[in-house]
């Protein structure tokens, strides 16, 4: 089914994104490892994250800094003071039966508020001279808050009715989460996808979260259309399914409206296998969370402007900033710059290569035109390989790319020959300069030698001179003969100039 999402009346989509701060060493309130993955059940726990009686939460200050960086990346304001609240509800995966989180109803408690995210056209691949019509609307960020992850319930079976038991693994309990809540400012599912991709990219640049880790980023979606109430979709386990779930939900809601059925405010769950949303089993009532300030964590005075400027100085460059630098300082084309910036790994690779040879345009061309093309080919032929594997593969290195750029830029090697050298070096790990020397492939730019060759050709085939008057391709034909004779070593530019010179001379003579 193809759905046109462009003209749906008042389609409003809002997001709640949960992101684990996986790059922290420890959990949010104790010294257990943040990296709980692949550990035997309940081994990554301590009295604090198990909520044993008498234990107190000990705030991880680095988590506050990480969350603040995320706030800055989304242009949020950061208050002078932040505080934590208890959200009380009973669930077996929640060791204390309350979650320590932030809550803005009674005071400004959260680490970030009133943010704004602009879709940078260049980052999205829109044309650089786009008019306002193509400009995507910016997305308001309601708030960003810091909170703890619960543990995990492992069911005996997917179907709850036939379960005899369920098991609880608290290894994840207490891992730091940042929740980003947007206003319902998205008007199309594809914008949501672009935004989520961009979030992943920003997290990678900030080095706060590794989005590749399973379950490190989760997203709930709110969808409403004209005349209907807001429907929340939960349980969307992969980012890929977010767009699908929204499309499904729009269709469902439109169908209801068409039949004059009211769209109820409700929570629905995404069924991953059937790719549909289903009403939550028991109608989830307006939950009573009995929020109140967490008495064990005193209000934290962040330090205002000093804190923010200090953070900025230790923050990594963001994708948008890097893109601007590539375009404005390096004069790289927007298209190439965008490809580099959209992956931090590739962009970092580029930055490394520049350290060996500082010719940004040529180096960027080598990465985008040669290296990434190779990677794409390889990925197609072997889906198990990812671009990362290849980038970190045995013979690929920023130094090699830099050397290639240098070979070409200093005009000692033709581009086609350089490609061959590149292929060989990738396979063997040879140094390109050594290879050039060894193969004696130094370009012939000696004008006398080339001129002699041209003269010989013209004297062997005198008709070429006459034909050249009517057919401009003759010069290219002669160049081809030279290349054949020199096995491609002749400098094409020098050769071409000489050909034209000699023809015009012969012409005058005749």
């Amino acid at each position, binding site marked *: 089914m193809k759905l046109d999402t462009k003209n749906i009346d008042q389609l409003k989509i809002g997001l709640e994104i949960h992101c684990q701060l996986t790059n922290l060493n420890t959990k949010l309130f104790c010294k257990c490892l943040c990296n709980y993955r692949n550990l035997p059940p309940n081994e990554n726990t301590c*009295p604090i994250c*198990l*909520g*044993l*009686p*008498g*234990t*107190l*939460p*000990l*705030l991880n200050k680095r988590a506050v800094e990480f969350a603040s960086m995320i706030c800055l990346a989304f242009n949020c304001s950061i208050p002078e003071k932040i505080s934590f609240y*208890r959200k*009380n509800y*009973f669930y*077996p995966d929640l*060791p*204390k*039966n*309350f979650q320590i989180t932030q809550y803005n109803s*009674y005071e400004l408690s959260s680490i970030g508020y009133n943010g704004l995210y602009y879709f940078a056209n260049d980052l999205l691949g829109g044309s650089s001279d786009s008019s306002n019509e193509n400009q995507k609307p910016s997305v308001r960020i309601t708030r960003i808050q810091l909170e703890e992850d619960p543990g995990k319930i492992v069911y005996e079976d997917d179907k709850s009715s036939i379960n005899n038991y*369920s098991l*609880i693994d*608290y290894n994840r309990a207490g891992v730091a989460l940042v929740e980003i809540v947007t206003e319902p400012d998205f008007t199309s599912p594809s914008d949501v996808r672009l935004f989520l991709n961009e979030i992943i990219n920003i997290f990678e640049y900030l080095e706060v979260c590794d989005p590749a880790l399973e379950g490190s980023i989760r997203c709930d979606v709110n969808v409403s259309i004209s005349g209907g109430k807001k429907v929340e979709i939960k349980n969307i386990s992969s980012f890929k399914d977010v767009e699908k779930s929204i499309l499904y939900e729009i269709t469902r809601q439109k169908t209801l409206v068409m039949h004059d059925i009211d769209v109820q405010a409700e929570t629905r769950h995404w069924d991953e296998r059937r790719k549909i949303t289903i009403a939550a089993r028991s109608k989830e009532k307006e939950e*009573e*969370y*009995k*929020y*109140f300030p967490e*008495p*064990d*964590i*005193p209000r934290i005075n962040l330090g205002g402007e000093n804190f923010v400027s200090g953070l900025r100085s230790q923050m990594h460059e963001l994708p948008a900033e890097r893109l601007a630098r590539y375009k404005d300082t390096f004069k790289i084309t927007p298209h190439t710059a965008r490809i580099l910036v959209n992956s931090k790994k590739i962009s970092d690779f580029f930055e490394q290569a520049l350290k060996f040879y500082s010719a940004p345009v040529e180096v960027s061309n080598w990465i985008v035109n040669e290296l990434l093309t190779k990677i794409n080919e390889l990925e197609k032929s072997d889906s198990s390989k990812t671009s990362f594997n290849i980038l970190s593969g045995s013979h690929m290195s920023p130094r090699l790319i830099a050397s290639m750029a240098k070979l070409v830029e200093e005009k000692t090697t033709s581009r086609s020959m350089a490609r061959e050298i590149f292929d060989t070096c990738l396979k063997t790990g040879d140094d390109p300069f050594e290879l050039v020397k060894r193969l004696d492939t130094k370009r012939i730019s000696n004008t006398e030698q080339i001129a002699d060759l041209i003269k010989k050709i013209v004297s062997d085939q005198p008709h070429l001179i006459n034909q050249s008057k009517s057919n401009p391709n003759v010069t290219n034909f002669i160049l081809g003969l030279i290349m054949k004779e020199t096995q491609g070593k002749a400098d094409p530019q020098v050769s071409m100039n000489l050909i034209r010179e000699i023809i015009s001379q012969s012409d005058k003579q005749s």
Partner: protein
Amino acid sequence: MKDLFKLPANLVVSKIKNGEFSAEEYISVIIGRINETDSRINSFITTNFEDALEKSKKIDKKIQTGEKTGIFAGIPIGIKDNINVKGLKNTCASRMLSDYISPYNATVIDRLEDQDAIVIGKLNMDEFGMGTTSEFSAYGPVRNPWNTGYVAGGSSGGSAAAVSSLQIPISLGSDTGGSIRCPASFCSVIGLKPTYGTVSRNGLVSYSNSLEQIGPIARTIFDIVPLLNTISGEDINDNTTSPSTNFCRIKSDEELRTAKFKVGLLSDLIQSSDHQIISGIQDKIDLLEKHHHHLENIKLSMIDFAVAAYYIIATAEASSNLSRFDNIRYGYHLNPEGYEWTSYFSKSRSLFGDEVKLRILLGSYVLSAGYFGKYYAKAQLVRSLIRNEFKNLFQKFDIILLPTMPVLPFKLGEKISNPVEIYNLDLFTIIANLTGLPAISIPAGFSKEGFPFGVQLIANAFEEQKLVDIAVLFEKEADYGECFPEL
């Protein structure tokens, strides 16, 4: 040898060091005393005798070999059963935790053991600290050593009664709304609630986090001071501890003679107390006057709202704190087979005592959506107004004086069916918890029927030293630490 249990801790330490008797001998006497008396007092929930004897032998060896020993070398200490001691049951006097053995030490326990104190057992209390009489215990009520038909006060009733009945020289209690000072007053011992943030709460099972502190109980101020100093101080395991804690000391007579305090008398509260308490407090006031301290009557404007504010805040926090007791990770034995987890939860939670259930319900109610502003926010407002009032008072005064409790100990069961009447008894003590200020209860005499009562002093934040100074003065004039109950 037989009467060693009558000695204060500071004397015992020096006698063990001098070799007058060994730590092992002393601990054996203490064990004998507890065994002999506890059937009448019921202050212990768990005893740790074997381990205590082992430890005493180690300390004797240390002394013999000339190794350095701590300031409590060989001293048995009783710990309220809501403070975690590794390897011992931590029941909080609740059936909910009847099988729960703690896997870790509270910070105060680590600090005491660093000073070679010996944990002799865990002491009885009101369930989760919720009570003023120590009658709400799953292990039966604590009995007042001065008359075992009467309440010992609470919630740290076991901690006060054990010290008062000469079972042990020192103990730790916790004070959320008077839980150290009330039983200290009823049992004629000294009990001190430190400034909020002085003593780490790490390992104290939370009842109301923003109000409570662990504090020392002893028969003499000379034992209170080293105990307080040992447990005080900033702790990386409690974000609410403060770096501004000061060490206290016993000042010389000369120093005390020259110190002149401005003392505010809460005359309304004094006058509203039992008449025998009024005259006992007056004796203390006269004593201060004799020593040329400046006295002045003062009034509190917000006092009428204090009890309500206190019970809203305390129960709100309690309802959340106690929600973790779902018997999933720990608790007591209950076979989960046949239960769905919500029904298992309900079944588990039914083991709370009635008073605890009452407070959880109350706390859940005041935190409900729509009621937050009406109750919790208002209570916090009252709290900050009372705080401000005291801030202003302490710009002028050094000490504020009032009775610890308005009443003498009453009969077991006498008030158990009237919760509001009991809540109102907390008025004099909750002030210090709402404001976070340090307060001490010092024995002030006995009624003609032989029931003790205490005088309470409140000082400005982190000025425990002033409380100690006055306590020394009182103790030198009338040493109730030498009055022992007949058992």
